[in-house]
């Protein structure tokens, strides 16, 4: 018996105390604090190969009898989304967050020649545009994934935060120095937009994380190279760090898929065929002449009059971009496509030489 606030006596129902996951669990902090790797112990650390959890039940919690479905969760097979280092990537993402408001030395931005400022603003417009897709798409897949695979879900949620910051930091850059947003490039209606048409998580990840973000990683690194001031240096360097983490997610997922679901390898090669098409499309401004690649050439060259110098640098960096893509796909376990003539990347590297 217990006394309620109004003084009346009531019966306690302590039945919930008997409905638990494994008890007497004592996770202990490691040298990096109490990470989700540290709490992956006993049954709590076991992600099922296939999940029938459609009720939002946290992995390891006792099931609630007769509970109704709250999620459709088409992603319920482990190899659909899993990767070996998800918990590590998540903790790294948390630890390496930054603020676009206070960690960027905005005071170092100074007036630039009009053509260079306009080019900076064009690039910032493009990046704001593509980062919308990079945030929207993983957010949707989080909601489609069973809670039993919470580690990769956590990484995707961290990615959404990263992309949100990228959207705002490039918008801030466009508005910070006497320019503004330029015309939308339409990149999101091409390959970048098509990422959101993916019907399978691995299809999405191969397009978004491996091909798309791998290309944007190169763009961010170029942004750091051509920065006109310390603020831009920091913006692009920090965005590149985030992007490299997203790329690692995609490559490690492909690697897991390759090892655990070999029957899907041909399907994955088809996704990579499509993803490689995006490497030469207008969505990749390092790929061919677009308003965005023109703007980068102007910034790299130091103005419209030195456009050719800038374009030569872009071509050199494009070669690096393609070589890095090829090595990531090899690392993921799909290197045979570069040996059997299926991939055009080697030809693209030669053309960029």
């Amino acid at each position, binding site marked *: 018996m217990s006394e309620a606030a109004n003084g009346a006596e009531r019966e306690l129902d302590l039945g919930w105390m008997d409905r638990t996951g494994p008890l007497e669990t004592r996770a202990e902090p490691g040298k990096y604090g109490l990470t989700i790797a540290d709490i992956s112990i006993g049954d709590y650390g076991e992600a099922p190969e296939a999940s029938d959890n459609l009720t939002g039940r946290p992995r390891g919690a006792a099931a609630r009898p007769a509970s109704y479905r709250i999620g459709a969760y088409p992603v319920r097979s482990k190899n659909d989304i899993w990767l070996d280092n998800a918990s590590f990537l998540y*903790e790294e993402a948390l630890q*390496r967050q930054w603020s676009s408001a206070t*960690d960027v030395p905005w005071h170092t931005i100074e007036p630039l020649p009009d053509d260079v400022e306009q080019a900076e603003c064009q690039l910032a417009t493009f990046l704001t545009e593509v980062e919308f897709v990079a945030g929207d798409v993983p957010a949707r897949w989080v909601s489609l994934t069973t809670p039993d695979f919470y580690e990769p879900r956590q990484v995707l949620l961290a990615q959404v935060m990263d992309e949100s910051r990228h959207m705002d930091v490039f918008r801030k850059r466009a508005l910070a120095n006497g320019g503004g947003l330029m015309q939308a490039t339409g990149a999101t209606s091409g390959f970048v937009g098509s990422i959101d048409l993916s019907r399978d998580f691995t299809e999405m990840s191969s397009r978004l994380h491996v091909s798309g973000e791998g290309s944007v990683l190169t763009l961010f690194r170029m942004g*750091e190279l051509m920065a006109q001031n*310390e603020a831009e240096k920091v913006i692009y*360097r920090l965005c590149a*760090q985030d992007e490299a*983490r997203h790329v690692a997610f995609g490559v490690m997922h492909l690697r897991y898929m390759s090892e655990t679901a070999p029957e899907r390898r041909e399907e994955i090669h088809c996704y990579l065929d499509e993803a490689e098409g995006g490497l030469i499309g207008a969505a990749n401004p390092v790929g061919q002449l677009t308003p965005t690649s023109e703007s980068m050439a102007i910034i790299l060259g130091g103005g419209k009059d030195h456009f050719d110098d800038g374009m030569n640098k872009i071509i*050199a960096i494009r070669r690096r971009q393609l070589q890095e893509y090829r090595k*990531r796909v090899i690392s993921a376990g799909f290197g045979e496509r570069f040996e059997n003539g299926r991939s055009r990347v080697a030809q693209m590297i030669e053309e960029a030489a």
Partner: protein
Amino acid sequence: MALFPSVDWFDEVRNVFNADERYRGAGGGYCNCVAGFRIAEKVFVLTFDGFECSAAAEGDDGTLDDVDFYLEMPAKAWRDMVANIAANGAADLHHTLNTLDLDREDGLATSKHGDQVREDLFFRYNQTLQFFFDASALVETEFPKE
């Protein structure tokens, strides 16, 4: 006064880097990698573990087989970078690690194993690596006579 390059020099930079909590935020933070540096004929290896650079050691060419990535450029370019950091308190726009990487035809960062996931750690932890070398601005450095 520490001679660049030497384990003593890297140790002094480690002491500055590990003691300054500002390097743990602003895009810094957990960093877990083993990075190699080929400077002239010498090879050095730094181990980053969590918030700290936990070890600096001298190695040889074979040591580079095991690092996640290594940075290689001519001795003069290393010296210019370190001198630039000392003069400005941090790398200027032309001497950051990423800029030096992209500005060089063969790049600055590479590996022997060719695994791009491990090579990508150079990009993933770039701010931490930059913080590390920028910390050298507080180390009195001398260079070998040419």
